[in-house]
């Protein structure tokens, strides 16, 4: 009945902000919560320190000479804890307090507790040798923690650093939205410039702007502290002047409708395309290599997105299609492949590759899609490994070279015009770009097609989808095949780019990384998938491909894991959620609400009908 109608939107309190109550006194803290949070931070600090990140990343300088990536990893936790501890949960009818000394003091205390983890660690490092179980229990770590001084210094300094950084984190709450935006912009500008250093230097060389980067960056890496100040000031001023114009513009675009919307979107796409086409001309090997790697993963992630995001089939063995694409392209084009070597031109081979991978998709998909849920995921995991083991096996080594793999694979010849090989990453990137464009277009069309709708129906409720007349078996198989074909593009380019394929390039890890990219970016969303690849593959690096923060490569999985956990907790819809998906997730609670109410009604409905008792014989 009307009483069971859910509210229109979830954001009940978002409309009108109630006035703030006076700020609380500095010492009126919720100490228990503060210490709990600080203790969690302390554990995290110790964990980070013992993961060896600070020592290994100490070489990567962010701001010369004051801050290295290694030390940065030790500052993040107290900062976050100090900021978080001042968080007030918004509750209807409860006053919100203005931020003030309370937040700064709380942040400082909480940060000090978190920093205290390192103090404790420094003492332990000096007095015990636990190198046996903990490989990173090293004098180097002790030295780093003490800044080369005595242990006593380390104890005091980390309490102080923790308090200072925590106070900064808490103090962030004192800033008005505009100032906060400026501060965040400044931090992003400096951080971005540091992270993107290899890229910026590379581009500057291409554009003959070395003079600029020489001034910005120190000789052996890192931003000069003077330039960092300048950069911060400049970006801060821009942020203040800009006053959220970007957000306004975005809101404006979001409001556009119909033809205007289409035109704006078209312009945006054109502009992006233009940048992507022109940029590589000025970029050196490094940048192009990076872009090409990102592109290869965009292709893979788009393929997996069809399977997981649209059709809802959790495929943990997606690497199989990447492998089949790579290997079949290698066999068809390389003169050195063991059994058959037709040495087809790459484009011709690609057609065969697509057919082969499509068939493999059918072959693997046929038994798999009859399963549901967790069983399906586990079986796909198995298939992913089986394919790799087949390529590795002695049994098929006459075809695929076993562990020797296939080497000397020629580059991709396009109509005999150009030869795209790994030696020229720019051409590789253009090739990847072309296929990405194709894959994006295909995904975009599919999503809006009748087939796309059928996929979503199957994802939601397979039985009902069948009752609607959807041939669920065919539809799911088709998702598998489309995903396989998109993955095979990536594989075929990969083998031409690298020039060799080995079974070890296709570990389970690749499947996982692709899945993480899809989840991180926002499942079922094309832009999200691209953004996810750019951030994860471009910055952190792929399974074997170095990213911008090449120093991170050994901690990559750790960070993937941490990011994923944070993502699931804070932003389950992904980096750039599809409109649909965020609607799904944020209306979840209301759905449960509606369901509960439904249950209540269920109880009422029996009164006219029969009880559950057995029916008598007639």
């Amino acid at each position, binding site marked *: 009945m009307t009483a069971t109608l*859910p509210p229109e939107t979830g954001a009940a309190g978002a409309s009108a902000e109630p006035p703030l109550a006076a700020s609380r006194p500095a010492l009126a803290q919720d100490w228990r919560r503060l210490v709990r949070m600080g203790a969690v931070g302390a554990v995290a600090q110790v964990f980070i320190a013992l993961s060896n990140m600070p020592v290994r990343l100490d070489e990567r300088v962010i701001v010369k000479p004051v801050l290295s990536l290694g030390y940065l990893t030790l500052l993040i936790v107290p900062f976050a804890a100090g900021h978080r501890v001042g968080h007030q949960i918004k509750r209807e009818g409860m006053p919100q307090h203005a931020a003030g000394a309370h937040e700064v003091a709380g942040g400082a205390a909480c940060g000090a507790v978190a920093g205290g983890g390192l103090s404790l660690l420094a003492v332990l490092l000096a007095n015990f040798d636990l190198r046996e179980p903990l490989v990173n229990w090293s004098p180097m770590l002790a030295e780093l923690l003490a800044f080369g001084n005595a242990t006593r210094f380390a104890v005091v300094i980390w309490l102080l650093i923790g308090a200072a950084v925590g106070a900064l984190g808490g103090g962030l709450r004192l800033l008005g939205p505009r100032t906060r935006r400026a501060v965040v912009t400044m931090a992003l500008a400096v951080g971005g410039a540091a992270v993107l250093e290899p890229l910026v230097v590379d581009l500057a060389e291409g554009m003959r702007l070395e003079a600029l980067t020489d001034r910005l960056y120190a000789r052996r890496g890192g931003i000069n502290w003077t330039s960092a100040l300048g950069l911060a000031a400049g970006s801060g001023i821009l942020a203040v002047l800009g006053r959220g114009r970007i957000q306004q513009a975005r809101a404006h675009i979001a409001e556009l409708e119909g033809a205007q919307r289409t035109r704006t979107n078209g312009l945006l796409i054109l502009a992006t395309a233009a940048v992507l086409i022109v940029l590589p001309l000025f970029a050196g090997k490094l940048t192009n290599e990076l872009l090409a790697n990102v592109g290869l993963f965009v292709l893979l992630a788009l393929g997996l997105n069809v399977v997981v995001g649209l059709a809802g089939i959790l495929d943990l063995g997606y690497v199989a299609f990447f492998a089949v694409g790579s290997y079949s392209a290698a066999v068809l084009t390389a003169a050195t492949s063991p059994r058959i070597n037709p040495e087809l031109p790459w484009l011709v081979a690609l057609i065969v590759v697509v057919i082969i991978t499509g068939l493999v998709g059918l072959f693997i998909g046929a038994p798999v899609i009859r399963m549901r849920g967790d069983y399906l995921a586990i079986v796909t995991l198995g298939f992913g490994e089986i394919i790799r083991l087949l390529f590795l096996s002695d049994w098929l080594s006459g075809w695929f070279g076993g562990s020797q793999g296939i080497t000397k694979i020629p580059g991709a010849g396009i109509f005999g015009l150009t030869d795209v090989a790994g030696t020229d990453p720019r051409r590789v990137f253009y090739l990847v770009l072309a296929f990405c464009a194709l894959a994006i277009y295909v995904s975009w069309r599919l999503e809006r097609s009748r087939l796309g709708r059928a996929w979503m*129906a199957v994802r939601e409720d397979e039985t009902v989808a069948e009752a609607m*007349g959807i*041939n669920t078996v065919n539809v799911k198989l088709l998702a598998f095949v489309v995903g396989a074909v998109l993955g095979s593009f990536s594989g075929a380019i990969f083998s031409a780019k690298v020039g060799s394929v080995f079974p070890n390039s296709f570990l389970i890890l690749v499947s996982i990384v692709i899945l993480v990219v899809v989840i991180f970016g926002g499942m079922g969303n094309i832009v999200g998938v691209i953004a996810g690849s750019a951030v994860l593959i471009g910055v952190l690096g792929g399974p074997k491909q170095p990213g911008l923060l090449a120093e991170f490569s050994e901690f990559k999985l750790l960070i993937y894991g941490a990011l994923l956990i944070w993502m699931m907790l804070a932003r389950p819809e992904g980096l750039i959620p599809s409109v649909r998906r965020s609607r799904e997730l944020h209306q979840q609670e209301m759905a449960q609400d509606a369901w509960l109410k439904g249950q209540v009604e269920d109880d009422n409905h029996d009164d*006219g009908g*029969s009880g559950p008792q057995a029916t008598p014989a007639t």
Partner: protein
Amino acid sequence: MSADGGQPAAGPLLEMRSVNAHYGAVHALRDVDLSIYEGELVCLLGGNASGKSTTLKTLLGMLKPTSGEVVLDGEVVNDRPTSYRVARGVTMVPENRRLFKRLSVRENLDLGAYLRSDTDGIAADLERVFELFPRVKERLSQKAGTLSGGEQQMVAMGRALMAKPRVLLMDEPSMGLAPALVQQNFELIQQIHEAGLTVFMVEQNANMALSIADRGWVLQTGRVVLDDTAENLLAHPDLRASYLGQADT
């Protein structure tokens, strides 16, 4: 059995001829005979686990009979897939409505018309659904799972109507609805029926179902134990005892 006498000369629209159906070893339907004629409103009664939903699944082709025949419009469709039968006008409103909860109302309706390609016809039927359920039109972009139970029932019916059915199979349409809504719901079914649609309804709410139905069957552990007009069924002593919950009146 009976009841064929007073029906129009044409054969039944949908028919089961001594159908047996199993889930693995479980014998869910035993020699079931049913016939639904064009323009009828008929109902299938039965207690829990008597095989009502199984009957609908078998009619729609989601479960294959182990023996016997399912006949649609004179054609034996045992080996035809669900999509074939949906395309020929058999549509189901599933038990508990079962909307695609995380899709919008609009997408749910579109999926109802999944097998159709006549754009004009679809648009016209959409208008008809809006006419029947103005409420649905207001909530087009809302996620179906967030609708109230009553609204979900409307969308479920709308989704089924979008398939342009000739016979509508409804699995316990009153389940999970408040008493007042149940009444309203049956009125709606009657209204749709009067507009020319054949309805085959599965119910536990025997009183209510028989009050609007022409004929009915009673199913018990997979077997048809009663097959009569609604009037006679309502008066049947055994049925009164067991389903209408009024043994001694």
